[in-house]
């Protein structure tokens, strides 16, 4: 009897080792978020795997036959300061884009690094789009140059986004009013959006207001608790509440997010394990 027990244990161990070696046993996610609809039905599962300089988010949803299938995977790589250096999005099994971030200390008045360049590629090798960033002396983003590389020929489309600020907001927690204009240097096409960002004393953004570019006024309102944790995010268009996200915590640990429509009706909920 005793010998049978040890034999069974040994077999179990051997099976486990071999299962691991052929990757039958999947790694355990660091976080699982279960998404439910307004009726409480589970409609999606987001699993997050985190290592020192790497985060992988895997989202699964049910297909027409009720089977769980991988919908998308977002892999983000970070540098030692936890700033993203690469994002790799796979959508329905297909690599959608690889986005690489480059940093430099561009604003001499600050002891920090800024994004200096972002490269986009649909296969991870050929760059199809590139952005170069410029900042003013106070560290505010003033210009993004976009290079759109047309793969069929020698042409490289170029346009830029200019950020024009009102006044001199020297601190990042001060109200910022600026115009965001997109200028196509080949055609002269141009659009301008007016933006206002308002911050609280903790330098957290409380209001983001955008208008122009043919869109209605859009406002995002953010609220925080005493620990400076985001507790709600309200989206308004033309003064009407369109949706609200509510963040619920246990201590400082985020436990769930609810999305409600403008009438307050629950649309979706995400529960975090």
């Amino acid at each position, binding site marked *: 009897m005793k010998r049978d027990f040890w034999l069974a244990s040994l077999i179990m161990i051997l099976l486990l080792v071999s299962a691991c070696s052929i990757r039958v046993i999947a790694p355990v996610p660091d976080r699982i*978020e279960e*998404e439910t609809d307004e009726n409480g039905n589970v409609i999606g599962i987001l699993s997050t795997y985190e290592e020192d300089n790497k985060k992988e*988010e895997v*989202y699964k949803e049910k297909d027409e036959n009720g089977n769980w299938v991988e*919908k*998308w995977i*977002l892999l983000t790589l970070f540098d030692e300061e936890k700033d993203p250096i690469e994002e790799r*999005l796979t*959508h*329905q099994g*297909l*690599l*959608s*884009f690889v986005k690489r971030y480059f940093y430099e200390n561009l604003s001499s008045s600050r002891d920090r690094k800024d994004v200096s360049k972002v490269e*986009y590629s*649909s296969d991870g090798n050929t760059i*199809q*789009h590139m952005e170069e960033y410029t900042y003013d002396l106070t560290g505010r983003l003033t210009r993004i140059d*976009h290079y*759109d590389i*047309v793969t*069929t020929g020698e*042409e490289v*489309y170029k*346009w830029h*986004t200019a950020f*024009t600020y*009102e*006044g001199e907001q020297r601190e990042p927690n001060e*109200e910022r*009013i600026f*115009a965001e*204009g*997109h200028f*196509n240097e*080949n*055609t*002269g*096409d*141009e*659009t*301008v959006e*007016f933006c*206002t960002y308002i911050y609280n004393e903790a330098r957290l953004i409380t209001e983001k207001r955008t208008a*122009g*570019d*043919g*869109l209605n006024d859009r406002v995002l309102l953010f609220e925080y608790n005493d620990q400076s944790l985001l507790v709600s995010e309200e*989206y308004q268009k033309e003064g009407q509440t*369109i*949706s609200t*996200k509510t963040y619920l915590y246990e201590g400082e640990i985020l436990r769930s*997010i609810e*999305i409600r*429509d403008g009438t307050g009706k629950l*649309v*979706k909920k*995400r529960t975090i394990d």
Partner: protein
Amino acid sequence: MKISLVFTILCVMSLSVFAAFYTSSSSLLLNPVPNEAPYLVEVSENTFFNPFAIKEVRFAIYGLLSRQYFCDNLTGIGTITPMFTPFEYSETYFGEGSFVNELGFSYQGNEDGALETITQALTSAASLPELAGRLVKLGDGFWYFDGEKVQIKLYTRTEEEYRQQMGDYIANQLEKTGLSVTRIAGVFGQTTPIVYYHDPALLEWSAYTEYWGSPAPYLSYEGRLRVIKQMYAPSFGNMPGKGIPGFWQYTNELIDKKVNEVENKFYFTESEMKNLYLDLVKSGITEAIRIYLFGYTR
């Protein structure tokens, strides 16, 4: 909160430039009525077979038309850029290019593959009980339904030379499929009311060459989603039927649902939104109601 006068004037001056320059694009709109088997439409007690009610036939049009042809041959316009999605600016910016690759699209097109797909789809339709013996391909290479050639009514525009060239090329390519093409050319005021404001179920038109002006480069997800909604989502009112009461309507609940989710921010993270966006781009392309051809500057 008060925006200074100088700031406002500068910005308004910037906006005034808005109308002075234009980037344009062209697409082919297809009439998919009734968008389901057996693809028959009753008009004034007559029954017609609509090949563009078959999704596979519509989708094959992407390959049937060579974007390179437009780039090389249209005259009287500036730089021409091939397009598969509604964005003149970098179709690969947010991952759209992966679909273009996956679906096997090329600027040259794939005429042989498209013709094969269309023939297969029509042959398969001909085997449906409702169409058996009624939809046939005869020795002259044309498809017939109830003894009459299956007709495509192609509406094209005549205002400028390049529009006529484009219409001629599309008509010639469509005729290679064994469908008889009736070419109906006219200026905006003649063609648009019929295509946009008559019931698609009257089958007065099958395909229409459209032109769009776009003053903004779509650099943000928000901007691009606005275009996706306009060009692919029935709820916006720009698809066949246009939401006009009493007309037959092209419907697509999935596209409308996802557009609604994005527009109202019914998503938890930016990653989720980006994937919803890609879902929408892919659905719009594969539904093939509005097929993008090229962008151009003038």
